C-alpha cells in the first residue's frame, strides 16, 4: 500500500463541500475566535438563505481549535487538507495566519484568513485571502484625523515586535509620506510601568499621537498617558478594541479619538441586520464582520468553483459584495479586502460606554498600496 | 524488677525491600543506661529511628513498641517527643543556619521550663558560642549542641545514637560523664561503639546481629566475658581497641 493516505477531494456532485475552520476557541484570543465563529454562522445562514447548502451540496464545517499556537494550527490544517477539505478558514492570530498560508499554497487549497490583522497576509500567495481588515487600513483611518498632515508632528507609540513594526512603518509611509514628520516611541509589550514612555511622548509635543497597543497592559498604559497629561495635550488616536475592553479605558476613553474596524451600530446594511438577528445576544462586535465575510466568501467560492480551487480563486478575485460593514471588494492583484473603516468616539462611564461613529471612510479611501503577489 | 520504660516486641523494619530488622524484641529498664550494640549496618540506628517514628518513606515497620502502656508506632514523632521521648540522632543534625542560642530555643517545649543552667553547666562552650552559627561549629561542638538541646527538657526516656563519634578523647570523657549523670534521673537507650564508654555507663546491654537480638542481659557481664565479647562483638580483647586515653597514656609514660 502507499505509505500515506490522502483523501481525494470527492468529485461527487452531491458530496458535501468540506470547509475547515482553524481558529482560537481557547487561549488568549478565545473571545476574538468566538465572535468570528458567531459571525461565520450568521454569514453562512445569510449567504445560503438559511439552507446551508450550495446548490445540492451541503456545507460541512469542521471546527478545530488552534489555541493560538501556529504549530497546532499547522497540524490541524494538514489534517483537514488530508481529509479532503479544499477550503480552510479561521486564523484568529497573525502568527497562525502566516504559518497556515504557505501550507495552503503548498497543497493548493483555498485559505481565507480571519481576524489576523497582519499586513503580511495580503499578497502572501494566490491561495490566500483575507476576510478582515489589515493594520494599514487602521493607519489610513488614523490619518484622516489630522486633516492636512503637511508640517505636522506625529508620534507613534507602539509595542516592540512585528505588530508595532508594522504600525510604525505604516504610519511613516501613510502620514509621513503625506508630509508629516513621524517619530516613534517603542516599549516592550511586557512593560508594566509606562511613565518613562509617557514622559518621552510628552516632551516630543506631537500634533498627533498614534497608539498601537494590544494586550492586557493596555489599561495601565492609558491610565499613565492620562495621568501624565498626554491625552489632553494632543490628539490621540488608537484602534477601538472589542466591546468588553471599553470600560478598561476608564476616564481616558472619552479623551481618545478612535479608529474602528467595527462596532455595533457602525453600519446599517442588510447584512448587519441579518447578523444582528442571528448573533447570540443581538449585539455585533469587532470581529463578527470578519466571520460573516468569510462565510460569504466560502459560499461564493463553492458556488462558482465547485471542487476546483483555481476556479474558486478566480471567482473571488475582484469580487465585490455587500458585507456587514458595507461594500467589500477583494482586490484581484493581492487579495486585499477593501472595506469601510470608521472614526468613532466613546461616551459614558463606569461599565457603560457607547460608541458613536463620527465618520465612515470607504473601502477606496482606506485602500492599502498594492503588493506584489509573493507566491 | 519494675516495669520496663520501653518495650520493643517483634519489631520488624523493611527499607526499600531490604529486611533490616527481623523481629527484634528487648526492653529498656526504667533506670540506668541500656546500651544497644552490634556491628556496623546491623540496624541499631534503624531501631532507634523506628522507635521515634522516623523510618524513611520507603520503609515499613511491623511489631509493637510501647512506652509504659502507650503504643508508639502509630503516633507522629512530634507527639512522642512531647510525651517525653528525647532523641539525639547519629549525625548530630544541628541547624546550621541558626545560631547556637536559636538551636537551643527551638528545643524549648511549651509547658515546661527549659533547664538552661543544666546545659550550660555541662557545656560552657555552648554559652560562650551562643551567637555563632551552628554550621560553623566543629564536629565536636556540634555534638555538644545536639546533646545539650535534648537535655533542655525533662524526658521519660532518651535515645542517643553514637554520641562520641568523632569526638576527641577529652570530650568523649566529658560526654560520658554527662550521660552518666543524666542517666541517674532518666533512663537512656544508647548506641555506642566505644567500649570504654559502654563499660563505664551501661547497666544492660542488647546486642543485635543479623537483624535479630543475639544477646541481652547485664552489660558488665557481657564485657567481662572475653568469649562472649569476641563472639558477639568480634572484639579480640575488650581492651584492644578501646579508643580511650588510658590506652594512649600507657604508651606515653
Amino acid at each position, binding site marked *: 500500500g502507499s505509505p500515506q493516505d490522502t483523501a481525494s477531494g470527492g468529485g461527487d456532485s452531491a458530496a458535501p463541500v468540506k470547509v475547515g475552520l482553524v481558529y482560537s476557541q481557547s487561549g488568549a484570543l478565545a473571545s476574538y475566535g468566538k465572535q468570528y465563529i458567531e459571525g461565520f454562522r450568521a454569514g453562512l445562514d445569510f449567504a445560503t438563505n438559511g439552507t446551508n447548502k450550495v446548490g445540492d451540496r451541503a456545507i460541512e464545517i469542521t471546527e478545530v481549535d488552534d489555541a493560538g499556537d501556529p504549530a497546532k494550527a499547522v497540524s490541524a490544517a494538514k489534517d483537514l487538507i488530508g481529509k479532503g477539505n479544499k477550503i480552510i478558514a479561521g486564523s484568529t492570530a497573525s502568527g497562525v495566519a502566516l504559518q497556515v498560508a504557505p501550507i495552503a499554497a503548498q497543497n493548493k487549497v483555498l485559505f481565507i484568513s480571519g481576524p489576523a490583522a497582519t499586513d503580511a497576509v495580503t499578497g502572501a500567495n494566490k491561495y490566500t485571502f483575507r476576510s478582515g481588515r489589515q493594520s494599514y487600513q487602521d493607519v489610513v483611518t488614523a490619518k484622516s484625523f489630522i486633516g492636512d498632515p503637511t508640517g505636522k508632528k506625529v508620534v507613534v507609540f507602539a509595542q*516592540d*515586535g512585528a505588530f508595532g513594526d508594522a504600525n510604525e512603518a505604516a504610519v511613516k509611509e501613510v502620514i509621513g509620506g503625506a508630509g508629516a514628520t513621524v517619530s516613534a516611541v517603542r516599549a516592550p509589550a511586557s512593560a508594566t510601568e509606562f511613565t518613562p514612555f509617557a514622559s518621552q511622548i510628552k516632551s516630543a509635543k506631537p500634533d498627533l499621537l498614534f497608539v498601537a497597543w494590544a494586550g492586557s497592559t493596555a489599561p495601565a498604559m492609558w491610565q499613565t498617558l492620562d495621568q501624565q497629561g498626554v491625552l489632553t495635550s494632543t490628539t490621540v488616536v488608537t484602534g477601538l478594541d472589542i466591546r468588553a475592553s471599553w470600560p478598561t479605558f476608564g476616564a481616558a476613553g472619552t479623551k481618545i479619538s478612535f479608529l474602528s474596524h467595527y462596532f455595533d451600530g457602525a453600519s446599517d446594511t442588510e447584512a448587519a441586520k441579518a447578523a444582528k438577528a442571528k448573533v447570540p445576544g443581538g449585539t455585533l462586535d469587532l470581529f463578527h464582520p470578519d466571520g460573516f465575510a468569510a462565510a460569504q466568501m466560502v459560499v461564493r467560492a463553492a458556488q462558482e468553483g465547485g471542487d476546483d480551487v483555481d476556479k474558486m480563486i478566480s471567482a473571488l478575485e475582484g469580487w465585490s459584495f455587500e458585507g456587514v460593514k458595507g461594500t467589500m471588494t477583494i482586490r484581484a492583484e493581492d487579495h486585499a479586502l477593501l472595506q469601510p473603516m470608521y472614526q468613532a468616539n466613546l461616551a459614558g462611564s463606569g461599565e457603560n460606554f457607547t460608541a458613536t461613529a463620527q465618520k465612515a471612510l470607504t473601502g477606496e479611501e482606506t485602500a492599502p498600496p498594492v503588493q506584489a503577489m509573493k507566491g | 524488677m519494675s516495669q520496663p520504660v520501653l518495650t520493643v516486641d517483634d519489631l520488624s523494619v523493611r527499607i526499600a525491600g531490604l529486611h533490616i530488622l527481623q523481629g527484634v524484641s528487648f526492653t529498656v529498664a526504667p533506670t540506668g543506661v541500656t546500651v544497644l550494640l552490634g556491628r556496623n549496618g546491623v540496624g541499631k540506628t534503624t531501631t532507634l529511628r523506628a522507635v521515634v517514628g522516623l523510618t524513611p518513606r520507603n520503609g515499613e515497620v511491623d511489631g509493637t513498641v510501647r512506652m509504659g502502656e502507650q503504643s508508639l508506632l502509630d503516633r507522629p514523632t512530634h507527639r512522642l517527643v512531647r510525651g517525653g521521648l528525647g532523641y539525639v540522632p547519629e549525625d548530630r543534625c544541628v541547624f546550621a543556619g541558626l545560631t547556637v542560642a536559636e538551636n537551643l530555643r527551638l528545643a524549648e517545649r511549651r509547658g515546661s521550663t527549659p533547664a538552661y543552667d543544666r546545659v550550660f553547666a555541662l557545656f560552657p562552650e555552648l554559652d560562650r558560642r551562643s551567637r555563632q552559627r551552628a554550621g560553623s561549629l566543629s564536629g565536636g561542638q556540634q555534638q555538644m549542641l545536639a546533646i545539650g538541646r535534648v537535655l533542655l527538657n525533662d524526658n521519660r526516656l532518651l535515645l542517643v545514637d553514637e554520641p562520641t563519634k568523632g569526638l576527641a578523647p577529652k570530650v568523649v570523657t566529658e560526654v560520658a560523664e554527662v550521660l552518666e549523670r543524666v542517666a541517674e534521673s532518666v533512663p537512656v537507650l544508647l548506641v555506642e561503639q566505644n567500649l570504654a564508654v559502654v563499660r563505664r555507663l551501661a547497666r544492660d546491654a542488647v546486642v543485635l546481629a543479623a537483624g535479630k537480638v543475639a544477646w541481652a542481659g547485664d552489660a558488665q557481664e557481657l564485657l567481662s566475658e572475653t568469649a562472649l565479647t569476641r563472639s558477639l562483638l568480634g572484639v579480640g580483647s575488650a581492651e584492644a581497641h578501646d579508643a580511650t586515653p588510658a590506652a594512649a597514656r600507657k604508651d606515653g609514660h
Partner: protein
Amino acid sequence: MTEVKSPEVPAPPAAVPAELTGGRVSRLRPYLPLLVLVVAVILPYSTLHLPGIFEGALNSPGTLQLLAVCLVFGGLAAGYDLLFGRTGMLSFGHALYFAAGVYGTDILITRAGLPLWQAAPLAIVGGTILAGLIGAVALRTVGIAFAMVTLAFAQVGAILVARDFGGLTGGEEGLPLDVSGLPAGLVGVANTVNLYWLALAYLVVVVLVVHRVSGSPTGRVLAGLRDDERRIGVLGLDPYRFKLVAFTLAGGLAAAGGVVYCLIVGGASPHITSSELTLSLLVMVVLGGPGTRWGPVLGGILYMYLDHRLVSFGSSGAVEALPAFLSRPLSEPLFVLGTVFILAVYFFPGGLASLAPRLALLRDALRPGRRRED
C-alpha cells in the same frame, strides 16, 4: 548539582541493572525496542483507524503530523534528560537551543536563501556553539543559581526573538518557512510521511546518543556528578569540563530537534522561546521517569500528544453536552493537561518508567494465585 534535591529526595531512579531482572521476558527485552522501531517505521503503511485516539487513520496526514511532532519532543525530552536526569543539572533554558535550531534553520533558509543541506548543519553547529558558550558562563554557578542563569539567557533569547531585530525573526508573528528551495519530498501534505520518518530518525539518533553516552566512561562521570560534585573533583576530574560537555551535547541535540521541528511545522513562532517550553520539557521528563532510558521519550511523546489532542477533546460534543461548570474547564486544554499532570505526579512517582516494575510486581503477585488454581 541541583540544590533543589534535598538529601532525602531519591535520586532519579537508575536504570535497573539487567542482572536484577529475571525471567523469560527479560531475554526478549533487548529486542523490544527494535520491534517497536520496526512497527514505528512501517506504521504509515497501516490504514488502521483508532477512533478517539487519532482523528484519522494511522496513515492520514493529520495523524502522521501529530506523531511527528510527538516524536520530536520525545527526542527533545530524552536529550534534556541527559542534563537533568543523568547529570543532575537543572537547566531552565533548554528551550533556547531548540529555538536556535528552529530559528536558525528558518532564517538561513528563508532570509539567507541557503539550501537545506547547508542550513541544517549550520543551525545545529550554531546551536551547539551557543550552548557551549552559554554553558561556559552559566556553569560557573551551581544549583538554583545555575537554573536561573540559564533561564535568564533563555529570556534574552526570547526578548531578541520578540523584538524582531533586523526583521529577522518576524517577532510575535513568527517566520513561516520558505519552502521553495526545499527538497520536494519534504513539502506538502502528501509528503507528511517523510517528515514523520525524519522525526523518527531524529528520535532514534537522540536515544542512541544518550544511551551510548550514559554507558560510556563519561556517562559514569556524569552520574557521579549527579551525586557528589566535590567528590569528582577530589578524584582528579574537572567537574566543570564534564558538565560543559553534557550541556553542550544536550544543546546540540536540542538544536538538531529544532531543525526537524522547523521542517515539520513549516516555520518558527515565538512560542518555542518561552520558558514554558523548558518547563514542559521538565514535565515531560518527570512524567516519563528521569534517568531512565525510555521514560523521557515516552513522557515527551505523551505530553505532546495530550497537548494537541486535548484541544479537540475540549470542543467535542461529549464535553459540550456537560453542564457549564464542567464543560467550561474541560474545554480549556491546559486545565486538563495540568490536572492530568498533577495526578500523574501523585500516582506514578518515578514516572511512566516506574510502571513497568510495578506491573511486574502485580504480575508476580497474581502468579502464585494462578498456580493455586492449577
